[in-house]
């Protein structure tokens, strides 16, 4: 023991105390997180600053972060002279209608899978879940042929109608949610002689506000951002959703970066607003997917 003691003492004087070490780690964490967050934001600042420059402003070296002269001309021009506004409205309609339908069907099915006993329930649910594993690329071509035979090419139907049948992911989330609600909830309705739809509609659905909000946010964003779907099905430019409209502008106004950045900003805006105001539903949706196995 006597031989060990000096070694221990020496090492103690060399290393930091527990508190100091924790403080150092925390400091380091702040630095890493802040530098990272700043790096993540640079492309946004770059877009935002460019969108307020005049066409010559982008050629200035070193690049200006605060535009001088500062102009809102780009926003006026892209909104009035191009069809971006139309794309904005188109996307709104597609996203709202398809998401509303998706939520109605999915909550209904999720409720049935969680709360109603019927033969084959688990088999049917398993079948639905299995579709989540099918890569979209495999069903893309037959779906196109189907919609073509229905005469739905160059309409919004291929983008909306499939969602009216619900989506496996949404049904899965709804089932998980309804399964957590207490058994007694339905009893009051059953005593009153209400049918299952009434129980779902007036008792369970009002409880499901958080999951509905989550699905609404996720669904709206998925539809707003969709690119491949509209690219395959929508042909006339007056029916383009905003994502497609934006990239069409890219070929029309090539190299006019001030305009293109203003257009991008307009396309991002609804999503940013939605995200910042409803942030907790995003976070919740991640917890809900039950990734813990």
């Amino acid at each position, binding site marked *: 023991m006597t031989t060990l003691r000096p070694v221990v003492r020496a090492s103690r004087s060399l290393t930091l105390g527990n508190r100091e070490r924790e403080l150092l780690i925390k400091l380091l*964490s702040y630095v890493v997180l802040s530098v990272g967050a700043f790096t993540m934001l640079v492309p946004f600042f770059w877009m935002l600053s460019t969108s307020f420059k005049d066409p010559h402003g982008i050629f200035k070296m070193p690049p200006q972060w605060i535009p001088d002269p500062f102009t809102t001309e780009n926003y006026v021009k892209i909104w009035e002279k191009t069809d971006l506004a139309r794309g904005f409205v188109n996307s709104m309609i597609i996203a709202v209608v398809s998401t509303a339908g998706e939520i109605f069907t999915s909550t209904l099915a999720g409720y049935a899978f969680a709360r109603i006993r019927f033969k084959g329930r688990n088999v049917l649910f398993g079948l639905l879940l299995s579709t989540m594993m099918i890569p979209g690329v495999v069903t893309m071509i037959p*779906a196109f042929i189907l919609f073509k035979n229905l005469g739905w090419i160059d309409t919004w139907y291929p983008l909306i109608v499939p969602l009216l049948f619900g989506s496996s992911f949404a049904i899965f989330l709804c089932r998980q949610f309804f399964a957590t609600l207490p058994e007694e909830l339905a009893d009051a309705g059953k005593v009153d002689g209400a049918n299952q739809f009434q129980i779902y509609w007036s008792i369970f659905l009002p409880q499901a506000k958080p999951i509905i909000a989550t699905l609404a946010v996720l669904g709206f964003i998925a539809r707003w951002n969709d690119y491949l779907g509209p690219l395959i099905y929508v042909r006339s430019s007056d029916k383009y959703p905003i994502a497609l409209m*934006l990239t069409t502008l890219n070929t029309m106004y090539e190299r006019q970066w001030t305009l293109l950045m203003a257009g991008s900003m307009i396309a991002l805006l609804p999503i940013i607003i939605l995200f910042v105001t409803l942030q907790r539903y995003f976070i919740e949706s991640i917890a809900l997917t039950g990734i813990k196995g």
Partner: protein
Amino acid sequence: MARYRLWPQSGLTLKQREAIWGYLFVALPMIGFVIFAAGPLIASIILSFAQWDLLRDPKWVGFDNWNTLLTLTVKHLPQEIDEATGEPLFLCARERVPQSQAREVEGQIDPRTGKAIECQPRYVRDRDVLPQGYRTALEFSLFNRRYVIGSRDPGFWEGLYNTSYMLLGIPVSMAIALLLAMALNQKIHGKSIYRMLYYLPVVLPIAATSLIWMWVYNPEFGILNYALDQLGLPSDLKWLQDRHLVKPALMIMGIWGGLGYQMLIFLAGLQGIPTQLYEAAKIDGAGMWARFRYVTWPGLTPTTFFLLVTGLIGGFQVFAQPYIMTAGGPYTASTTVVMVIWRNAFRDLQMGYASAQAWTLGVLIMAITLVNFLLARRWVYLETEGART
């Protein structure tokens, strides 16, 4: 509420009535399952045995599509021989030089360019070794020998190669995300702000972020080259126009777009690790590394596994970013496999052949998922198992 009753004297028991409601409620999704999932899945297998441009009637071609797509041939690519000397040929400053002379020339200064001359082995042309109808899908060297993989559809394999190359961004992104999640998983001020900032790119439309990144990558006036210049690094990079840089450029953008999601999932995983485990480890005198190695990492293996599998499934189907930013170029350097399928199906209207391609990709994705699941048993640590041992 009694007046709402649908079948007042139907003779059905309460249970039967309930079941009918159940079937009604799940009817739409089940019909959707048949029309939009199971049906197309089977239809695309059948289609893959046909030739169909949607204008004329489909023609059955048996395994032709599959043969064209999947038959690969590997050939050795020998070095060309100089006819005069019988020595292997080299290419030095665009001139054909036999081996003995190449050794002398190499390293000398080329009077035309002012640079040192480099010599590369000159190989036989690929079409001289490949069977008719085959073109090079990939060239590679193994044990100092040059090989060429020939295919009748090299575009598909090149797309697959490009896509796989870009998948390398996933582990990089996951490592950064884990680091950030661990930094966030402390008592830190502004946690929700950080969370929001990192997650924001995940939810934004790819059409818009692609345009933003095109402008970031702009060779002359983009912010990235300017930043590199300020750091004293090479700054004349043509990110999206250079066939060696275009894939890394798309990977960087991919990391930017996926980091926040991975970070949040890791954070959820970290919060699921019981704090008692850390305390116990501390009492046992475990240092930081030991705590990470024996507590954090095993606790995170299910999360890591989940991220890896979902990342691969998504990564194999990348389409919009290269489509918007580079149209698959320069040449075919950033053409992903889904772009190849998309072109065949919707531009060239080869529905049957494109279906075979789509199924090949689909099976590959499912196989990788399956292999991951099997391997997962070896390295994924589940709490339930841990409790038993």
